[in-house]
C-alpha cells in the first residue's frame, strides 16, 4: 500500500471495511516521510509515536464494529500554526519556541482526528504566515516536490508540498492573502479557501484577524470535499466564525454544471501574468463553455488595501515581540512588520471602508456570473532564493508580487477552489475558481467537472 498514490477516499473505504489496517497505512506514510522529507523539508514536528497510537485506536474501532469516521486511517498534516496537544505551536517562528506545548488541539485538528484521520506532523511555513515562499530563516526552505530547486510557495508551503509528494493525503493550511492558493499553484495540488467565517480558527495562531481563513489541500477534488466536510461547523471560540450550519459539499461536487456562467477576470488579473498563467485560465474557461471576459473594478486597489491592512494589523499583533526581541524575527518578516507599525491609522480605516465598496463591486458581477476565473499566481514557482521575477518583461521583487491575483479575492472573503494545471515546462500552475460568499459547493462542483474532463489534475502528465 502506497499512501502516496492512494486517495484519502480509497484509504478510508478500505480501512472502514477492515481490508487494510490504519496502522499499516500510517507506517507506510511515516516510512515515506523518512525517505522523502529530508530533501523536501515539509515538517517542523513529526508525531510518529502519536500517529501509530492513533492508528491503533482506529483499527480497534473497526474490529469492534464501531464507525471509525469518514477519514479512517487517512494520513494528514497541519500547518504549524494549528495547536496540536503536546506540541509547541511555532507558527514558523523562533520566538514562539519558548512557549509551552499546546494543552488541546485546535478545533479543526480535533475534528480531523474525530473523523479518524491520523495526524503525521506539523508543517513548515513562512514565519508568522507572512510570506509566499516558505523560505524560513529559522527552519530552512521547503523544496518543491516537482523541482527541488524551486520554492513550494507559501505561507502553507509544507502543507501543499507534503500532499504533492504523497507524504500525507490531506493537509490543512491557512490563507490570509493567498497562502493556500499560492502553494497549491506551485505544488500542483487542489486547495480550498472557503468563505471568510466558514471554518473556525479556534486554537490557531493568528496573523490578520479579519483576513485569516483556514482550508484543506488534497490531490483530488473528492478528497478536498471529504476533508472540507469533515471540518465544517460553527465554533463559538472564533468570534468571526459565522453561525451557519454545515453545508456539505461532497455529494454536491459530483453534480453537473449545466448552464454555468463563468467569467474570466481581465485587467489586473491579466496584466503581468505569464503566458503559462494565461494559458491555464484559457484552458479552464474553454472547458466550461464560451469564454466571457469581465472586469472586477479596482482590483489593483483592493490588493493595495489588503497589503496595508495585513502589514498594519500584523504589526500590531507582533508589536510587543518587535520591541522585545527584534533580532529573533526572520529578517524577511521583521522589516515589513516594523514598517507596518508606522502606517497612519487613516490608511487602515480607508482600506476597511474600501473593502465594503469592493465587496459590492464583486457582488454586482455575481449577478451575471456563477463563478469567476483568475490565475492563482503570475507564473510557475520561482527558484529558491530568487530575488526578482519577470512580470511580462518587467523585473520586480519576487516575494511581494506572488500574491497579486489572490489578495483582492481574500480581501473580500470569497470562496475559491484552487485547481492545478500543467505547463509545457512540466511544472504546475493554478487557477482560482471564485464563487460568491458561501458557495463552496459550487466552486468544488466546477473543480470536479474540470477534473473529470481531464483539464485539471494533481498528476503530472506523462511526457
Amino acid at each position, binding site marked *: 500500500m502506497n499512501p502516496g498514490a492512494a486517495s484519502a477516499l480509497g484509504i478510508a473505504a478500505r480501512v472502514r471495511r477492515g481490508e487494510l489496517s490504519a496502522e499499516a497505512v500510517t507506517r507506510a506514510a511515516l516510512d515515506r516521510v523518512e525517505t522523502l522529507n529530508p530533501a523536501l523539508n515539509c515538517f517542523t514536528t513529526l508525531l510518529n509515536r502519536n500517529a501509530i497510537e492513533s492508528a491503533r485506536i482506529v483499527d480497534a474501532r473497526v474490529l469492534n464494529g464501531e464507525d471509525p469516521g469518514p477519514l479512517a486511517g487517512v494520513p494528514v498534516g497541519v500547518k504549524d500554526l494549528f495547536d496540536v496537544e503536546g506540541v509547541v505551536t511555532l507558527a514558523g517562528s523562533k520566538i514562539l519556541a519558548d512557549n509551552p506545548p499546546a494543552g488541546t488541539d485546535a478545533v479543526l485538528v480535533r475534528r480531523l482526528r474525530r473523523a479518524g484521520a491520523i495526524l503525521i506532523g506539523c508543517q513548515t511555513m513562512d514565519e508568522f504566515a507572512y510570506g509566499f515562499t516558505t523560505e524560513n530563516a529559522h527552519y530552512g526552505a521547503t523544496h518543491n516536490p516537482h523541482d527541488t530547486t524551486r520554492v513550494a510557495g507559501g505561507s502553507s508551503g509544507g502543507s501543499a508540498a507534503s500532499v504533492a509528494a504523497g507524504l500525507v493525503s490531506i493537509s490543512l493550511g491557512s490563507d490570509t492573502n493567498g497562502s493556500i492558493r499560492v502553494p497549491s499553484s506551485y505544488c500542483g495540488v487542489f486547495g480550498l479557501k472557503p468563505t471568510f467565517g466558514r471554518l473556525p480558527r479556534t486554537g490557531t495562531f493568528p496573523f490578520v484577524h479579519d483576513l485569516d481563513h483556514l482550508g484543506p489541500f488534497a490531490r483530488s477534488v473528492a478528497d478536498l470535499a471529504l476533508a472540507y466536510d469533515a471540518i465544517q461547523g460553527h465554533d463559538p471560540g472564533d468570534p468571526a466564525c459565522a453561525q451557519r450550519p454545515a453545508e456539505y459539499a461532497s455529494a454536491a461536487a459530483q453534480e453537473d454544471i449545466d448552464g454555468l456562467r463563468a467569467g474570466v477576470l481581465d485587467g489586473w488579473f491579466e496584466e503581468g501574468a505569464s503566458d503559462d498563467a494565461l494559458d491555464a485560465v484559457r484552458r479552464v474557461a474553454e472547458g466550461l463553455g464560451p469564454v466571457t471576459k469581465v472586469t472586477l473594478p479596482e482590483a489593483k*486597489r483592493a490588493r493595495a*488595501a489588503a497589503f496595508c491592512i495585513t502589514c498594519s494589523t500584523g504589526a500590531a499583533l507582533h508589536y510587543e515581540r518587535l520591541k522585545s526581541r527584534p*533580532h529573533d524575527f526572520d529578517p524577511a518578516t521583521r522589516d515589513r512588520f516594523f*514598517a507596518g507599525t508606522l502606517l497612519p491609522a487613516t490608511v487602515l480605516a480607508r482600506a476597511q471602508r474600501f473593502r*465594503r*465598496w469592493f465587496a459590492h463591486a464583486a457582488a454586482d458581477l455575481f449577478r451575471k456570473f456563477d463563478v469567476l476565473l483568475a490565475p492563482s499566481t503570475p507564473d510557475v514557482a520561482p527558484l529558491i532564493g530568487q530575488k526578482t521575477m519577470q512580470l511580462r518583461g518587467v523585473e520586480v521583487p519576487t516575494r511581494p508580487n506572488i500574491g497579486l491575483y489572490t489578495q483582492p479575492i481574500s480581501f*473580500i472573503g470569497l470562496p475559491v477552489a484552487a485547481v492545478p494545471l500543467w505547463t509545457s515546462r512540466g511544472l504546475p500552475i493554478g487557477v482560482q475558481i471564485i464563487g460568491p460568499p458561501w458557495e463552496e459547493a459550487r466552486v468544488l462542483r466546477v473543480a470536479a467537472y474540470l477534473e473529470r474532463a481531464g483539464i485539471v489534475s494533481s498528476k503530472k502528465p506523462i511526457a
Partner: protein
Amino acid sequence: MSEQDQCVAELVKLFGVDIPKEFREGVAAQLASLFAQAELVTSFPLPDETEPAPVFTP
C-alpha cells in the same frame, strides 16, 4: 543619512517605536513600498456612507 533613512528616523521619534539602527535601511525600503500601496488606498474617493466591513460581534 539618505532621505529614506531620515524619514524612518523621524517616524521612529514620532511613534516611539524603537527600530534598531541596523534594521532601518531595510525598514525604509519596506516603508517606501507600503506607502506606495497606501497612496492607492487613500486616493480613492469613497462615498461618506460607505462603512467599513467589521466582523466583530460582541
